[in-house]
């Protein structure tokens, strides 16, 4: 776990932006958000929500594709197939998360048994 990245690894300019500008500017932006009303669709919040969603999706895709541990023993094709099947069931079942998760789980277990090492 490389916790101790110092400025040397990522270059001074990037460190300035990430460690100097961001933590400093966050308070000014919060001030602006308060003044212009913290309603649901204040543009800054909308943008941040988009960034957070994209980031989470990236993490989840990463989890499925190159996951270590137990999921790693299942061939990647099975994992992606199970995810797609689960998603399809979710859509068919009128966006029911329960159906999506259930189908995905059944698909990955079946796939792992059939194709697994």
């Amino acid at each position: 776990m490389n916790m101790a990245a110092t400025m040397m690894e990522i270059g001074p300019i990037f460190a300035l932006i990430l460690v100097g500008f961001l933590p400093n500017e966050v308070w000014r932006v919060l001030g602006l958000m308060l003044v212009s009303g913290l309603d649901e669709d204040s543009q800054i919040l909308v943008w941040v929500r988009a960034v957070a969603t994209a980031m989470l999706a990236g993490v989840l895709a990463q989890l499925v594709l190159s996951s270590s541990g137990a999921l790693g023993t299942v061939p990647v094709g099975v994992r992606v197939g199970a995810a797609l099947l689960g998603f399809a069931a979710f859509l068919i079942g009128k966006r029911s998360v329960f159906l999506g998760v259930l189908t995905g789980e059944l698909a990955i277990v079946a796939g792992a048994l059939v194709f697994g090492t």
Partner: protein
Amino acid sequence: MTMEPYLALLLLGVLPSEMWRWIGILVGRGLDEESEIILWVRAVATALVAAVVARIVLIPPGALAAVPLWVRLVALAGGVGAFYGIRRSAFAGVLVGEAILVIGMLAFGG
């Protein structure tokens, strides 16, 4: 120095998540200037600036290192004394501090 997982959980996991909830409280009940939390944060920030000032004077970069430590301390104290002495004027404080530093360097400098 890899960070111990529990410290990482607190610093990188809890702090970034919880801070938004605390700010929510601050914002929710209106941001009166003297509210206790703002007062505490201001005290922490002031202490931080003091620590940086001390760090620059005690572990100085480059040229300042050529000045003996005690000269730097006397110059600092002289500056503060001048500030309070001459009607709390920052200008006087800086001037006196700088003067003591230069003289001290010339007299005792390495």
